[in-house]
């Protein structure tokens, strides 16, 4: 592996950090390796917005190699809203550019005296003032930085005003609206007064055995291009699944209180394709191209929204105006805010207003009527600027709800807002949300795909009815391990690759001789390590939970009447995982079996 570059923004000192060889082999890269590197520095006492808090930008061993959807990187640290392990992965072209500059990661600590940006040109690093960029939106910032450094082919990742103001779900953006959206890594960057990081590299991206890797890469991409799911994603974007999700009652409506949305056709990926789509966009080397480019009335080309943004600003708020959703998604992007957390917190505000828990006095006169696009836009602006009620909402739904003594109404797990795949429609998501190391996350295990029917028989991930309960717990655990491999490579979860081919790619890229089972063991190892990090930061079994709304049946739709039996699912899951039933910690035996003896000593003495 190439070294990481450690940068202390307080002192301006830099040093190269070489990753221990054993860690490379045990964790591969990406979020898994980041967890190993940050294990000892993520403590319960650490304030995630303090100068001491680390912020680690990590690539994977296949980043930039034009393997199947491998143009990605991940940003890791301690979540400011969750106080837990945080990781957020992102596409675009920045990660490959960093590797071409000679580094596999940037490890940032400290806090600059005033706003700065970093300019890494090969092995030369400059810390430049960003005073004039502070307050600028994410797209403008990228343009200005590129102009200033005079390198058109540089790639820039940035925060917007929301990150500067430490909105707890602020995101990091690069390129054409690619987002590290979840877990508030933009707020951590803002707390360090770090506005942007520009990188440019000209080195060849290292691959252990390119002669072996190249034909495997071609074969993987050829198969991926023909894959049905990839075809749906290319043709319709991620919102191509909206109709099916709604049909099954897996798409939450009106802040998770309904399971049916009559006007789903108005906001679906198919509708976007038929009406406003003008082009598709892709991350580096990706043959899927799920990104959307759309045109509205002003004829300007802009990013089209993906599934989560559409459902968040759409059915979640009873809005079926697709063009308005495009605008609202773009507004979030410009502020640099995660659309899931933003729309979820806005949904909570509407919900509490309807229940009379908050009033016009709290909103300073704003009436929160479901489906009112102008009001939604007003709230996005207030959050992004941290003004009025937006200042409270910027803390995320858990704290917002708690402020009004209604924390239980917030649809979140451990401070991260639930995504728009409802466990009442796809029951495996109950475990995905309750046990994800970063809060209610749909990407640590997108098990909804398995519940829709996307099995991985080669991995032992078989089909259970979408409303099956504890019997699918071991299946969910195995799927989490599989996805943890993706997050270490760092590979997009939309790459429907053959595991046997995938392990060959990893072996060629890293000089390993793994089997599929070895690959899954690496996933399991990292999953347990992240769990241990969270245990050390105070997480216990009682935190593996779902919010009240998800434990009440939908009154309508394709899943009306169903509720996940979380307690029994969790017990079966702990059993499958080899975790202590009482504390929720990975057992000493399990940790030792995974080669994490030092972690076992930390957790168990």
């Amino acid at each position, binding site marked *: 592996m190439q070294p990481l570059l450690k940068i202390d923004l307080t002192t301006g000192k830099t040093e190269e950090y070489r990753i221990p060889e054993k860690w490379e082999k045990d964790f591969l890269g990406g979020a898994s390796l980041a967890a190993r590197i940050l294990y000892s520095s993520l403590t319960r006492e650490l304030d995630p917005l303090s100068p001491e808090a680390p912020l680690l930008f990590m690539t994977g061993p296949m980043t930039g190699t034009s393997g199947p959807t491998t143009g990605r990187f991940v940003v890791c640290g301690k979540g400011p809203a969750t106080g837990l392990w945080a990781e957020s992965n992102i596409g675009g072209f920045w990660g490959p550019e960093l590797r071409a500059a000679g580094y596999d990661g940037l490890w940032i600590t400290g806090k600059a005296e005033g706003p700065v940006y970093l300019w890494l040109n090969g092995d030369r690093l400059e810390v430049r003032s960003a005073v004039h960029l502070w307050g600028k939106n994410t797209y403008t910032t990228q343009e200005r930085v590129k102009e200033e450094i005079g390198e058109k082919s540089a790639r820039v990742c940035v925060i917007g005003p929301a990150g500067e103001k430490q909105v707890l779900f602020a995101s990091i953006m690069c390129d054409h609206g690619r987002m590290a959206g979840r877990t508030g890594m933009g707020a951590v960057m803002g707390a360090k007064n770090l506005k942007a990081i520009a990188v440019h590299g000209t080195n060849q991206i290292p691959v252990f055995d390119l002669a072996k890797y190249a034909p495997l890469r071609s074969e993987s991409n050829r198969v991926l291009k023909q894959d049905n799911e990839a*075809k749906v994603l290319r043709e319709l974007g991620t919102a191509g699944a909206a109709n099916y999700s709604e049909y099954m009652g897996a798409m939450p409506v009106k802040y998770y209180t309904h399971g049916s949305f009559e006007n789903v056709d108005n906001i679906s990926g*198919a509708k976007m394709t038929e009406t406003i789509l003008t082009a598709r966009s892709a991350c580096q080397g990706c043959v899927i191209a799920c990104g959307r480019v759309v045109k509205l009335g002003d004829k300007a080309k802009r990013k089209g929204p993906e599934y989560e943004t559409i459902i968040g600003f759409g059915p979640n708020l009873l809005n079926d105006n697709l063009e308005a959703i495009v605008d609202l998604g773009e507004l979030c992007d410009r502020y640099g805010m995660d659309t899931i957390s933003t729309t979820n917190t806005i949904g909570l505000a509407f919900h509490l207003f309807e229940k009379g828990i908050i009033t016009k006095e709290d909103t300073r006169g704003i009436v929160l009527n479901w489906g009112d696009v102008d009001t939604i836009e007003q709230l996005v602006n207030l959050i992004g600027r941290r003004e009025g009620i937006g200042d409270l909402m910027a803390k995320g739904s858990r704290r917002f709800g708690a402020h009004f003594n209604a924390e239980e109404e917030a649809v979140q797990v451990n401070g991260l807002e639930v995504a728009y795949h409802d466990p009442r429609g796809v029951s495996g998501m109950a475990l995905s949300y309750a046990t994800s190391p970063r809060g209610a996350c749909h990407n640590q295990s997108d098990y909804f795909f398995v519940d*829709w029917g996307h099995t991985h028989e080669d991995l032992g991930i078989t089909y259970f009815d979408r409303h099956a309960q504890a019997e699918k717990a071991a299946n969910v655990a195995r799927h989490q391990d599989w996805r943890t491999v993706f997050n270490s490579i760092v590979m997009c979860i939309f790459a429907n690759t053959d595991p046997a081919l995938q392990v060959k790619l990893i072996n060629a890229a890293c000089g390993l001789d793994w089997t599929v089972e070895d690959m899954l063991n690496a996933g399991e190892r990292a999953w347990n390590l992240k769990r241990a990090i969270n245990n050390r930061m105070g997480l216990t079994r009682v935190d593996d939970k779902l919010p009240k709304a998800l434990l009440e049946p939908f009154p309508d739709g394709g899943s009306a009447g169903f509720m996940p039996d979380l307690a029994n699912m969790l017990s079966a899951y702990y059993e499958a995982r080899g975790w202590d039933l009482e504390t929720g910690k990975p057992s000493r035996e399990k940790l030792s079996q995974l080669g994490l003896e030092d972690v076992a000593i930390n957790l168990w003495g």
Partner: protein
Amino acid sequence: MAAIFPSEEWLQGLERKLNSDSRYSEIAKNWEGDLLFLIEPDGNLNERLTFYLDLWHGQCRKVKYKPTPESYPSPAFTLTASYKNIAAILLGKLNPMTAMMTSKLKVKGSMGYMMRNVPTVLDFVRCAQEVTTEIL
């Protein structure tokens, strides 16, 4: 109405089922598109099998057993699967969505239209399963 798959009787049985099943008629009332199935040989099937159905507004307007693919050059959907997988779908052992999502059933045609009409697809499969008594 029920018959052994694959056979011309089976396809005709499916045509009658689609034209008499009120549930299918309701769910598929907006469907407009013909299907060409290409079943690749394996197991008891020694050569490629083709069959064609023209589906329109909840009805089946035409079927053709073993047409040459050239006789229907541009169907709305061409569906390709191995004999083993199509048999598994008809026997209820392979979920049709699993077949599509894992590319055991390859789809050529508008994925947008297909995704928007998943209920129709699933009910078409139900009808096909109900007319299948046995797989050769």
